[in-house]
């Protein structure tokens, strides 16, 4: 390295090492890397270097910059960790103990992470697929042919009708997954994803919301596996004393279909406005993968079976975080309550 640059490096190494306060760290950062800082100044002098030395000078200068930045980052990191160490603050080091700013994952991501953790422990992969999808993957492969009344369950947003649309459900990811991995069985996969419906935006409805789905394809998979795994998920996510019932429910892509209902956490099953006096709250849908869905992916349903279940994340997250308006989740005004997240 150029001798002059080497001296600069040594000089600032010492300065960085000796730093003790936030303010000093910031001042030094500006002195070095600010718009009118030393590094920019050195770069501006490159034109004064003779042509034959320019290349070497540029390389040395870049190396200096990188090394000082690394030192700076390391100092900042150590500064942060030092601030959490366990010695008593003194007058001298009091400022060092200011808490670092920690960001927050979005509440939906937090819920997704909790679920991913549950499923990864069971050997599941996390999967995803496109959001612009074809009718084939969104409907046909899921046993919902054209003009089937089940299509009314989902108002689609079309990009190019009737072929291209925004996926209306995470089961669409299942379609892609089964096709991609039909020769690579068994499968255990979970997939969080945003889905789209053509709905007017208001406090309770949005055109985009989030679902979470898990799929298993293996030999001898049973409803007992499905219900036990779903129950584990609910107990992990909600609490170990949560009461969930599993009833017969229809979804075209599964047979038999299973609907999990959670006992209303507000009235404990007695009936209240929240649960519309049913005592139970619908938590999603599930079932054994329909043989036609497996066959559509080229999977022999006589050998392989599987289950799938899915649930919405938005309402649960809203209830957990006391968010009253679904638009808050994706409208951006979570900003006023970051400390609660």
């Amino acid at each position: 390295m150029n001798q002059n640059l080497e001296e600069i490096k040594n000089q600032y190494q010492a300065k960085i090492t000796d730093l003790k306060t936030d303010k000093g760290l910031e001042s030094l950062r500006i002195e070095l890397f600010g718009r009118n800082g030393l590094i920019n100044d050195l770069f501006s002098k490159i034109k004064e270097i003779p042509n034959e030395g320019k290349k070497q000078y540029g390389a040395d200068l870049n190396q200096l910059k990188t090394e000082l930045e690394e030192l700076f980052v390391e100092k900042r990191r150590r500064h942060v960790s030092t601030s959490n160490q366990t010695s008593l603050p003194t007058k001298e080091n009091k400022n060092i103990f200011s808490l670092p700013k920690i960001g927050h994952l979005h509440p939906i991501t937090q819920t997704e992470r909790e679920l991913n953790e549950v499923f990864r422990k069971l050997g599941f992969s996390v999967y995803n697929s496109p959001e612009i999808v074809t009718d084939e993957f969104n409907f046909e492969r899921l046993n919902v042919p054209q003009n089937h009344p089940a299509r009314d369950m989902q108002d689609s947003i079309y990009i190019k009708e009737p072929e291209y649309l925004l996926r209306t459900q995470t089961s669409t990811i299942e379609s892609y997954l089964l096709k991609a991995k039909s020769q690579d069985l068994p499968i255990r996969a979970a997939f969080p994803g945003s889905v789209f419906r053509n709905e007017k935006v208001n406090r309770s409805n949005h055109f985009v919301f989030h679902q979470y789905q898990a799929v298993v394809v293996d030999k001898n998979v049973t409803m007992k596996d499905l219900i036990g795994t779903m129950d584990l998920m609910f107990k992990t996510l909600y609490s170990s004393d949560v009461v969930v019932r599993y009833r017969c429910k229809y979804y075209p892509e599964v047979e038999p279909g299973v609907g999990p209902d959670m006992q209303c956490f507000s009235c404990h099953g007695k009936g209240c406005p929240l649960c519309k006096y049913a005592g139970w709250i619908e938590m999603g849908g599930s079932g054994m993968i329909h043989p036609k869905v497996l066959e559509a992916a080229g999977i022999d349903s006589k050998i392989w079976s599987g289950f799938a279940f899915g649930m919405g994340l938005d309402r649960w997250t809203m209830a957990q975080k006391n968010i009253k308006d679904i638009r808050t989740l994706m409208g951006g005004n979570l900003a006023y309550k970051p400390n609660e997240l």
Partner: protein
Amino acid sequence: MKLIYSQLQKFLPDLKIEPQQLRDDLTMIGHFTNFFEEIDSEIVFDLDIKVNRGDCLGYYGLAKDLSVFYNIKLISPFRQREMPEGQRDLEILPIQITTDNVKRVMAVKISNFKNNSSPQWLQTFLKCHNTKSINTLVDLTNYIMFLYGIPNHAFDTAKSTDNLIWEMNSKFKEFISLDGSKLFLDNKILMINNPDKTLSLSFWGGESCAIDLTTTETIIELAIYDRTTVRQNSRQLKSVTEASIRLEKDLDCELIPTAFNHLVNLILENCGGQINSQIFDHYPQKTNLPQIEFDPKKPSLVSGIDISTNFSLDCLKRLDCQINGSTITPPSLRKDITIEADLIEEVIRFWGYQKIPTNQPLTFKEISDITPKEIYLIENLKDQLIQLGYDEVLTWPLITNSIDEKTVIKTQNSINSEAVYLRQSLIPSLVQQLDQYNRFKLPEPQFFEIGKVFFKDGNNFIEKTALGIYNYDSEKLQLDIKNLNLPLVKGGPRGIDNFVEIILDELLKPEKYIPNQQQNNAIELTSQIITLDANITLDNKEDPIKLILKYSQIISSKYLWKLIITDIYQDLKTNKYRYTFQASYFNLDDKTAKSIHLKTFDLI
């Protein structure tokens, strides 16, 4: 679908169960029952009927299900009347069917009756079904529709004549419905016309031949059509009726004679008059029932619990399935049963889903990890950005304005005018996000989003994953990006002042951002760090350092890897302070770490 308990008991006289239990049982066997209420001394249930169970859009189908579930008798609530089939002295109705979209029609003319306002029982029935009472004849047609789930219609022959023609519309431009709505027709609409005028849609009667109190002669008809045609007509005309809801399901043509006979009976009983034509029955293609190979052990294999083969076969018998060895023929009523899996579901739902244990989840199984690298990359970037103090936000993928008209993807039918285009960049949404932060005067905002951006390239739709970041301090932003080893984008279309956008799909070596996956569980177990959170609520604000010191002294340094306070929150209602600690433990198993954690923070 509304269900009056006393009417249900006419089909199931042995049904004596408490309404609340009936509500729960209906729900468990697949007919989600929202609630029941009392209307004019009647107990009325409110049900959501599954879209594949058209038969349960009538009392008869639901009663059949309950008769199997409770193992009680299903009876016909009326005595079948002998119909005047083949009587030569009666008129043959000059009805024409010119389209294949009619699966079955039965019709007859009844003359010399006296139409009145409906008897009280009928008015109450319709009130419980949220249906307005018109007059006896019209109300009886609705009554039969609710009982059997098969729509039907009565024409005033003084207005319609006897010359009814079922046809795809070819010459009429508009149609006035019973409620006076004017609908515009094309040649895709299945109609009942006479040679001179429109009379009815397949799912909605017309004003031109409406029954009123002066009507003395009618042709009544029960019909089932090609359901796709009805569905398309209903959508095209933006008209949904009780009849269209039923006719777009797969209904049982074999049930028409029973419902027809019942309707004729009721009209003659309540309005007098006599049958004045031969029965018209157009049924060109009789229902072919599926033959399904069924293994009675399968319900056990699929459910994972022991269900006896005797129960399986007995259950199918009670459903009126024909059993011939291993071949099962389901009843024509049950259009939803077409394959073995459908029969399996029938057995398991009547056996009871609640008998399947809930405490036996899958156990861990080592299967090759198919997680796309991009997902690890995103998770890793999010974690790093959080550590650098950024908040994650999510914004709308559909937005109001485009950036580049040539490549923007526009939705075709979005009903939200502010959500027409798929976003081409995260930056405009993040700019709006910044407005929110500023609106709430949040100091030193820094946030990010990882989400899809969309483009059109000719006929191809392209989506890419982008990372958008904002930092109030542009220099820190550049430093942070460098620390993340991401390419720095200055200015240009993807960087505006303190915003930066990076397309993650375009990173040259995404794998370098992905942490090594731990394949060896043993290594994972011995080296794992267990991180647990704890919320402590205090009456007064305290020095966080003192709190960290206090709690770190409780935990042995052999086990404490890291202790930080991630959040301090003042509850303005209680004026208390909540401190969120994040403690990382090592050299411990999960259970012991949790135990120490709970004890330390007094969370037990």
